């Protein structure tokens, strides 16, 4: 079997998702048997962009003309485009202030009164600009999920999705319910599971890093949190940490 030609790269992001993949040390030899890493600047395994790819695995949000240029060229050259991680899927932490801040003010905070500010726009998910064929969520994603995806791509398919909220795995692990028992601001009911309730298992609330679960009852979660004495602003602030623009009226 011919190894897949793969591009792995990042747009506006912290490279954490790509590092997660590189940290799969036990699996890397097998992974390299399946993939020819044609373009993977972070790992310096290759930097040929002028090629056709079986898959492009792209981390990060789109927030500069350069991001856009790279994304378009990968979309045109790849059979399967994978949105890799929360930023690529939802905008992520870089987008948390999208709905409340003016881009120019943010740039000035970072670059001061420079004569020429770098060109940038509100960070957005890949799907706002191109069609996306597959996704791995998480900040960072679970190692298992990215390995599953690569294995499935090599087998000519995609892995089946997990469609339950964080609560399902959390309850099954016999964790203390932080929302009900400790009345903390936990986003478990509306956030995509698959992380095995990593945070609540150690007593930390779900921060929502994996984005909304399918058909999330956002309005009811908001009501639950308001009933527990949290302010609307605080709740929205927390919910938009990894994904701006929730529909707070959504009940299905």
């Amino acid at each position: 079997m011919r190894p897949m030609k793969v591009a792995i790269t990042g747009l506006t992001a912290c490279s954490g998702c790509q590092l997660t993949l590189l940290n799969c040390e036990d699996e890397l030899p097998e992974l390299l048997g399946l993939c020819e890493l044609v373009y993977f600047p972070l790992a310096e395994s290759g930097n040929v962009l002028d090629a056709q790819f079986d898959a492009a695995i792209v981390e990060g949000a789109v927030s500069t003309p350069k991001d856009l240029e790279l994304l378009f060229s990968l979309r045109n050259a790849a059979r399967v485009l994978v949105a890799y991680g929360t930023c690529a899927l939802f905008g992520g932490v870089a987008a948390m202030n999208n709905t409340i801040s003016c881009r120019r003010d943010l740039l000035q905070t970072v670059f001061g009164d420079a004569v020429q500010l770098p060109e940038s726009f509100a960070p957005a998910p890949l799907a706002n600009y191109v069609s996306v064929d597959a996704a791995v969520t998480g900040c960072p994603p679970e190692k298992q999920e990215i390995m599953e995806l690569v294995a499935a791509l090599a087998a000519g398919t995609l892995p089946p999705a997990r469609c339950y909220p964080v609560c399902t795995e959390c309850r099954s692990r016999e964790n203390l319910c932080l929302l009900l028992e400790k009345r903390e601001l936990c986003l478990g009911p509306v956030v995509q599971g698959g992380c095995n309730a990593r945070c609540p298992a150690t007593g930390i609330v779900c921060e929502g890093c994996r984005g909304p679960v399918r058909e999330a009852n956002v309005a009811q979660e908001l009501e639950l949190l308001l009933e527990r004495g949290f302010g609307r602003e605080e709740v929205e602030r927390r919910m938009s940490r990894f994904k701006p623009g929730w529909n707070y009226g959504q009940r299905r």
Partner: protein
Amino acid sequence: MANNFLKISRLDQFLETLRLFGELHAPTVSESGVHRFSPLEDPDELHLDYRRTQIPPKKYLFPFREEILHYGGGGYREGHSSAGDLVIFGVHSCDLEGIAYLDRVFLADRPDPGYAARRSRLTLVGIACEPDDFCFCTAATESASCDLFLSAGQDGYHITSYSARGSALLSAADHLLEERAAQPSPAISGPCYPAQDPELRFSDHPLWQKFASTCVSCGACSVCCPTCYCFDVREYPTLSGGGTRIREWDNCLFATHGEVAGANFRPDRLDRLRYRFLHKYCGFTPLQGMSSCVGCGRCKEFCPVDIDLRELTVAPEKVEP
């Protein structure tokens, strides 16, 4: 008359005897304060005054997630059931009835191999309890769906054996027991909540709409239910070229539960709640006409929005004009 009474002062020795029949598990409290069944290392960790564990003992027979098949290189092998002999001590009658129901599902007709293997190596020791505000039962009951059942008496427990294995346990512990006149046993329990008319699921009760709008589909009611057994089977290719098939608890309130290629049998949360009502209180073929609610009260205690489907069987109060 056989020795049938265990003084409370001899409970620790009795537990040691139980260890001869398998790894001993019992109700304990986790570091974060959650009641659960877990291996009992030290009798001091035993919490026999517990109300209900978050997850029922079904986890031992039907784990949340298990690998049921591995394939590759043109062949396959079934997953390991990894069953050793296990003794669960201190199970309430509702949870024992829950296991009895799962037995009907997984051991009838074509037995589920993993479940059957684990079930055959499981010894169940039940214990009497007092209902609390969440329990659906109103009085203490005794379940016969176990090997031994301990009912509380003055300074100890009256023990009844309900199986050959139970009798073997009693023989092994005979030196710890003494003879006492048996007390009148409490009612033998069964499914706690009566079977309902399937047509009720299409009633125009206003609570249907309310529940459909407030349910967050977190899955807690089903995850924590001793008789919910719906599962999903998925396959994940592995890097070595083969794949793994897993089985995982599913939930009728998830969008994917009724989803097939191109459509969904139950597209809305309301449809899913009606379906849950049907399965839980009316039963499916071949268990049609049988309620599977054993009254443990977990769904009521763990629901973040206080949904109790039983309220749908009570006619709404008429509001006088």
